[in-house]
């Protein structure tokens, strides 16, 4: 195995960190995979966008069978409630054995700001997931799905993307509709949206969770198709940075 490792490293000539990770992984697999101890985590979420707010964030460490969402599958009602209205209570209630941190920002997480939470995880909760609705969108959310929590102490940082729950047409009309099944966007917290849009689309043909195609917006604050401002409410992936410190 050592020879295999050194050959692999020699061959790829990649970053040393990668080799380190590989050797760590091999070491772990040969020693004590079953002896994973309860972990103390610090988790920071940074909103990387210029004009999108995040509603209350749900952070959960859970077992390998639990999923808050899955790309290519239909959203659960609990996920739909989060993605359309920012309500994480049903998702949280579903997580009976998970370790979780709810709403660390105590409300909205504004663009270009960060929030953090501490999490003590049980032995069996080896996967981390993070979700929060993006405002103003119809059913867009930031998503981290079942990231394997490293057993080695250290700081791990990565970015995540915007998803569409596939449960509501992206009409981009700010109507206050936040309940599951109610059309429209609940609110534009940045206060720079318009009114009088006729609706970008009235259908949601892809009913599965998918990467969000982004908002369209327009340059007419009192009309046009969208109530969103195309110079303010668009985004490109990635939309959030997650920094996990394993203590």
């Amino acid at each position: 195995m050592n020879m295999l490792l050194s050959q692999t490293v020699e061959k790829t000539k990649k970053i040393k960190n990668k080799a380190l990770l590989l050797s760590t992984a091999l070491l772990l697999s040969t020693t004590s995979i079953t002896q994973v101890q309860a972990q103390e985590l610090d988790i920071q979420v940074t909103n990387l966008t210029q004009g999108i707010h995040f509603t209350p964030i749900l952070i959960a460490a859970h077992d390998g069978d639990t999923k808050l969402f899955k790309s290519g599958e239909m959203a659960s009602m609990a996920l739909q409630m989060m993605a359309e209205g920012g309500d994480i209570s049903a998702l949280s209630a579903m997580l009976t054995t998970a370790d979780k941190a709810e709403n660390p920002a105590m409300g909205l997480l504004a663009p270009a700001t960060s929030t953090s939470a501490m999490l003590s995880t049980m032995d069996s909760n080896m996967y981390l997931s993070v979700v929060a609705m993006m405002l103003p969108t119809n059913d867009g959310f930031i998503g981290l799905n079942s990231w394997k929590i490293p057993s080695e102490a250290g700081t791990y940082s990565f970015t995540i993307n915007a998803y569409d729950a596939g449960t509501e047409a992206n009409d981009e009309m700010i109507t206050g509709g936040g309940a599951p099944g109610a059309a429209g966007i609940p609110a534009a917290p940045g206060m720079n949206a318009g009114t009088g849009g006729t609706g970008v689309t009235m259908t949601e043909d892809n009913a599965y969770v998918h990467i969000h195609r982004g908002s369209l917006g327009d340059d007419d604050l009192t009309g046009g198709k969208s109530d969103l401002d195309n110079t303010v409410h668009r985004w490109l992936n990635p939309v959030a940075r997650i920094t996990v410190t394993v203590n």
Partner: protein
Amino acid sequence: MISINKKLALSALTTLILSACGGSSSTSTMMPIEVPDPMFTYSYQVTVTNLTYAQPMSPVALILHNEGQLWTVGEMASIALENLAESGDNSDVLAESMVLSGQGGAGLLLPGMSEVVDVSYTFTDVNNAPMMFSLATMLVNTNDAFTGVNALEINNLAIGESISLTTSSYDSGTEKNSELMATIPGPAGGGTGEGFNAERDDIDKVTMHSGIVSVDDGLMVSALTQAHRFDNPTLAIMVTRTE
């Protein structure tokens, strides 16, 4: 690094011994000899590729440093970064106090093109090897978009080893994304678009860039067209340690 160090030390030692023994045997006193400080040079070859369709990149700024960051998401852009992101002028970034060694690109890096830039740092204290590499460049057909690498750790890079990565694009937050012709310094602004302006009329925090809208996608006042739209990533970069 260690092997060079040993060789240098060895040759210095040899010189000492030789000069001490090689002299006349008539005297037993050893003359003090000036041993010059050993010099170390770390060199990096950086290949930068512009991945966009129609966003020329301003002359890149490459720096080696041991502390600091060129930008932090959520914090205000430095004036040096604002200047680079609004006008494409890299001189202030290259002159930042944290810079151990800096190197500018030869000129505009056009879409689809690659450029190889070398940057080196020579030092005497073995503990002063450069730890971090940063790079910044403006997407010139925008108000204040830039892309680059922020404090990439290179301290473990052995000679001949490389790190490859792609970069996302950021908004310096210092100029509203009006896309008006008069505000775009690149060719899409007709050559007369304004560059640096110390006024900060945007959110004054660095974030990821939302992309440009363009006249073809619903911003009637925009000087930009569908061709200037971009998605992440915008640069491919390979850093190879050569010495």
